[in-house]
């Protein structure tokens, strides 16, 4: 276990280094002079020079890069050009909202997908299965920036059950969370179904049945427990998509999280904030993937004890 843990940790550190460098260089390859882009063409020469000094743009690229990396390591992400405030504190203000939205969406997705997937597997090929998989296809195919407005049209403007946008209590969380969670629920229910069906062909399932165990024990304790592994991997990967999708969903509902901050900052050309948002979301993603890998090893002794990979 320690060797595996160590190698995964090292990879994660390396990947974060790469992510930070990529974010740095993306902004460095911006066509044109970044200062001119940020301040506009009509800015005074003195202002430009001041900003250039402040951003360290007069230094050689390698030095700027190492400075960026060391600053990032201390979570000093510079200052927002628009808010005149440290990027790290801006991110901290917005992070909770995104986390709340992502967690709610995740919860909804799991609550829908687990029963649906198990039911579809148990009733394979019958009406329940076909219906569930049909809904899953709909869920994968519906873009959240369309589903969101449709839900608002029906449940906020039509029925008046939920607020149209903003973040004000639990009610305002419902529609954004459903919007964001639908795609994940759809993919997850398919995965639960196929993973479970695969496990149910194994010898130990026949043994369990032959022992005369009740059907639900066979499905849940023998089947589901072994079907978890591929599902977990998928969850890790899909949580990244969830975080990315949150950017669009937040914009639809004007949810005050990292996503709206990112989109606003792109429009304002507030590049330090753009950098910060991308870094923080990717950091979360790397952390989630690391966690799933470790969890995977914890659940499946074959990975912990055998050679990784």
């Amino acid at each position: 276990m320690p060797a595996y843990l160590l190698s995964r940790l090292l990879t994660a550190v390396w990947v974060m280094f790469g992510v930070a460098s990529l974010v740095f260089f993306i902004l460095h390859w911006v066509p044109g002079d970044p200062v001119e882009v940020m301040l506009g063409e009509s800015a005074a020469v003195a202002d430009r020079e001041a900003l250039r000094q402040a951003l360290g743009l007069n230094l050689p690229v390698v030095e700027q890069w190492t400075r960026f990396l060391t600053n990032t390591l201390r979570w000093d992400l510079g200052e927002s050009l628009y808010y005149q405030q440290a990027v790290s504190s801006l991110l901290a203000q917005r992070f909770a909202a995104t986390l709340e939205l992502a967690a709610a969406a995740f919860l909804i997705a799991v609550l829908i997908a687990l029963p649906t997937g198990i039911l579809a597997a148990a009733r394979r090929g019958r009406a329940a299965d076909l219906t569930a998989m049909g809904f899953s296809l709909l869920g994968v195919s519906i873009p959240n920036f369309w589903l969101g407005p449709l839900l608002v049209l029906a449940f906020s403007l039509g029925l008046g059950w939920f607020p149209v946008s903003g973040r004000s209590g639990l009610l305002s969380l419902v529609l954004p969370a459903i919007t964001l969670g639908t795609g994940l629920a759809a993919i997850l229910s398919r995965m639960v179904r196929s993973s479970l069906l695969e496990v149910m062909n194994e010898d130990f399932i026949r043994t369990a049945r032959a022992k005369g165990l009740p059907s639900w024990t066979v499905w849940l304790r023998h089947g589901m427990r072994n079907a978890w592994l591929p599902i977990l991997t998928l969850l890790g990967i899909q949580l990244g998509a969830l975080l990315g999708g949150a950017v669009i969903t937040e914009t639809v509902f004007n949810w005050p999280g990292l996503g709206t901050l990112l989109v606003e900052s792109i429009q304002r050309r507030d590049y330090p904030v753009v950098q910060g948002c991308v870094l923080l979301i990717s950091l979360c993603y790397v952390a989630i993937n690391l966690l799933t890998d470790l969890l995977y090893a914890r659940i499946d002794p074959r990975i912990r004890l055998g050679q990784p990979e």
Partner: protein
Amino acid sequence: MKTAIFLALLILSLWAILACVSPWLPLHPDQVVLQAILDVPGQSYLLGADDLGRPVLDRLLVGAKTSFWVAAGVISLSLVSGTLLGCTAAYLGGWWDRVLVMLLDIFMAFPGILLAIALAGVLGPGIGNLVIALSLVGWVGFARLARAQVLSVKCREHVQAATALGSRTPRIIVRHLLPLIAAPLVVEATFGVAAVVIAESGLSFLGLGVQPPESSWGSMIRDGVRYMLVAPHLVLAPGVALFMVVMSVNLLGDYLRDLLDVRTLQKL
């Protein structure tokens, strides 16, 4: 299932044909008719008019063109570059392979749409930049898949035979490896089309993609949201078009996956 696939193919052919012939159709996507502002479908135009009095149907068809060509461009660019990089890295091995794996690890640490948003935001709006941004995200999946597939087949006898007969690397990759790994790549590319269509509309929805007066289904949805109570067709029409295309592609992808018997496929 058969009818569903037939319908999906019908929708996709319609999409492709409309995208190809739309320059020669008598479309007026930018024609502002003040009397027609927010007209419901059937009143002045077949699908009504938007907040500036422009015909929704014409804009929808131009949006079909946008999404089709962006998808075609992004998928061909990222399929070719990703496959090429993945194949050569896996076949040659050594430092080239290690560099590619490092790059893949880094690119995969970004949620795809997030990287696309950041790139599109930095590059600036426009169809060309949109294609670049989405291709820079898209190649990763193909490279990873191609690499994994080549690793699993590169030691087969026919490859050794070809090496022994003196075939050069490009010939081995094209003639002896690519045909073996084509099936999963085709399936991945099919699902990729759905992802790109959604991403294009999503970026345009955020205002980072196609700029006015060009039209995209995503920007039509964004512009329509403000008038949702009085003119819901502005949101419904582009959304239905988008949804039908994406669902058809996904259906086709599922069908191809079963047909070609591609099993362990990880969607990005």
